[in-house]
């Protein structure tokens, strides 16, 4: 490096910081500050003196870990987490399995009407979640659903989809219907990126289309599968729209059905912002641990695979 070069770079030394400033400012104002405030609120509570009527009867005081112990001892939060776990166990495998299957089918050699099919499968993703949940909700209600009408005419049993175990299926169905298309596109795109020579070589070796799919395509789109799985876990933990929209239609969905619904109820239903803040912090932390834990596990496996390949 010459002196001339060095002098010039000295003049723009502050430039990176100047470029960083807007993003840092936005991050501080709209992420760090609210998160910090939520953390602060989660350690506070209201204290009332006397009957609590009139001015000065209500003070905000330090609560210590009180809101956190309340959140952990309240079985509703844990129950909600378990319900969401059950829901996730249906949604994630079914949605990703379907997405992979459809992507592989679309990627097969002789497909008719591929662009149309792709669009048709993707379309539900473009429908706002609340609208989708309402639409399905109406289809689940025996008295107004055309499905039940047909079942009744055929003399078949009519299950109550808004209760017990079937409720999980009903909720999962909405998520799968809406989300499969998006995941399929992600996987399909990475399938398209696989060089044609790979297939050519496989065919010359006498591999059948099924073998190509199982031995070549799926391993090569594994990073996309990890990515879609990661997104799906986060989305599942944050499930809110579907149960909230179905809630007025049935007695089976409580106001605390999912953990986020409980946060919402505590903040806006019962007006305890402090408790809601503590629960939001717990959920955020759990989401962080789960999703990054999964990413690290996935990365470690990839590295192991890579070193195995190298050893071979």
């Amino acid at each position, binding site marked *: 490096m010459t002196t001339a070069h060095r002098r010039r770079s000295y003049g723009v030394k502050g430039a990176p910081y100047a470029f960083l400033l807007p993003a840092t400012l936005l991050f501080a104002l709209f992420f760090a500050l609210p998160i910090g405030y939520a953390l602060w609120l989660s350690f506070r509570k209201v204290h009332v003196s006397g009957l609590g009527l009139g001015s000065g009867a209500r003070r905000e005081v330090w609560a210590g870990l009180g809101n956190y112990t309340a959140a952990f001892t309240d079985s509703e939060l844990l129950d909600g987490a378990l319900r969401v776990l059950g829901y996730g166990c249906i949604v994630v495998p079914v949605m990703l399995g379907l997405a992979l299957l459809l992507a592989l089918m679309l990627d097969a050699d002789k497909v008719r009407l591929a662009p149309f099919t792709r669009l048709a499968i993707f379309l539900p993703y473009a429908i706002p979640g609340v609208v989708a949940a309402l639409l399905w909700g109406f289809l689940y209600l025996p008295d107004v659903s055309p499905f039940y009408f047909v079942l009744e005419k055929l003399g078949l049993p009519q299950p109550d989809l808004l209760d017990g175990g079937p409720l999980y299926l009903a909720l999962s169905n909405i998520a799968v219907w809406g989300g499969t298309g998006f995941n399929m596109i992600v996987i399909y795109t990475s399938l398209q990126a696989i060089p044609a020579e790979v297939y050519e070589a496989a065919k010359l070796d006498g591999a059948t289309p099924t073998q190509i799919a199982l031995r070549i395509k799926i391993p090569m789109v594994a990073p996309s599968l990890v990515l879609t799985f990661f997104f799906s876990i986060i989305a599942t933990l944050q499930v809110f729209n579907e149960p909230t929209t179905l809630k007025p239609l*049935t*007695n089976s969905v409580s106001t605390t059905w999912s953990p986020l619904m409980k946060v919402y109820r505590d903040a806006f239903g019962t007006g305890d912002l402090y408790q809601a803040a503590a629960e939001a912090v717990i959920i955020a932390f759990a989401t962080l641990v789960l999703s990054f834990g999964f990413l690290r596990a996935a990365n470690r496996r990839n590295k192991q695979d890579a070193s195995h390949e190298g050893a071979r």
Partner: protein
Amino acid sequence: MPNTKRRRLFVRGAAATLAATLGATALAACGSSDEDSAESGPVSLTYWTWTPGMDKVVDLWNKGEGKKDQITVTVKKQASGDTLVTKILTAHKAGKAPDLVQAEYQALPTLVSNDALADIGKNVGDAKSKFADGVWQQTTLGTDAVYAVPQDIGPMMFYYRADLFEKYGLTVPTTWEQFAATARALKEKAPDTDLTTFSANDSGLFAGLAQQAGAKWWTTSGDKWNVGINDAATKKVADFWGGLVKEGAIDNQPMYTPAWNKALNTGKQIAWVSAVWAPGTLTTAAPDTKGKWAMAPLPQWSADENVTGSWGGSSTAVTTDSEHKDAAARFAAWLNTDGDALNALAKESGIYPASTSAQLSGAFTTPPDYFSNQADFYTTAAKIAKTTAPSAWGPNVNVAYTTFKDAFGAAAKDKSDFSAALDKMQADTVADMKKQGFEVSE
């Protein structure tokens, strides 16, 4: 929902979760009024309300009474019910609550307890004389202060399909015992048909039924609150409805769903325990059965009684953040006691006025369109309104109401013991009050 959130980065997702709890704080900053602090000269007031057509009623004030005194009121349309209470409280925390707010009666103690409402006793003149005692008492919370002016009320009544009652040979029940017998008789004659449903998605209905039975959910003695949600009167109501649900005499599905609308519209459900505002709901829920319904007083717990509960109703209050409390209080009094204002409220917003003189004048001399077959609809309604039992609201009605929805929703679904659900409602409400530092005796 999963699909839209999937596009988000994780950190954003987490931040959004946290920010959701803070969202209301941000609203406070946008929704409030900025006023000049001058006491004389033009005054402009902001009014948060969910009543449809309120802007037209306020125009009357701005062009008439208000113009003389240079008091201009601006309506900011809000969502109704519990969410508005939270919004007012959050705005108040930031010191930016609007001058005037609409508040349901059961929300008044919560708002007063947060020091959000001003005592307007000296500014509302002789307003007290315009209202029934039971209604007025809700705005004073039993103190010497006046925290709001009553606007509309929701005395409860019994609505039934007159034609189908005749078809099935049923008589209109005057006691709850007869009500249960009617439900059973109907089940025998038409097994697919229900008299009504027990719905757990509107706590106000159950609160009103308990009020009719004489329940006093919140009372005070000295510096202590007594919470009696599971008192004998409420237990009686809970067990009554729980029993009907358990034996299958009535339905257990929630109201206000497409299925419920259809049931009312096709005669699958032939009665509804509701309030004076029911014609509006029935018009949209069961349009095909217009003119076939009739209204009667609510069944009683004993034949010699004549009381009803209330379901809904709201008041106009002035906040402590207002810099023009006198002007705001004058508007609140005008809006709810002036003849022209009340006429406009009835015409533009379709409310049933709390003011006793307005209950039989103007819009209320003819029955609502949906009940054109019942000429004396509003005369009967006014008589029933006079029999409204006193209510007893406390500082965390929102908690009791939320617990009701979950506990009774589950009990109705499982057809299990309603009094266990009631105990849960009591326990959660007391626990919340204790957490806040209230002194509570049960």
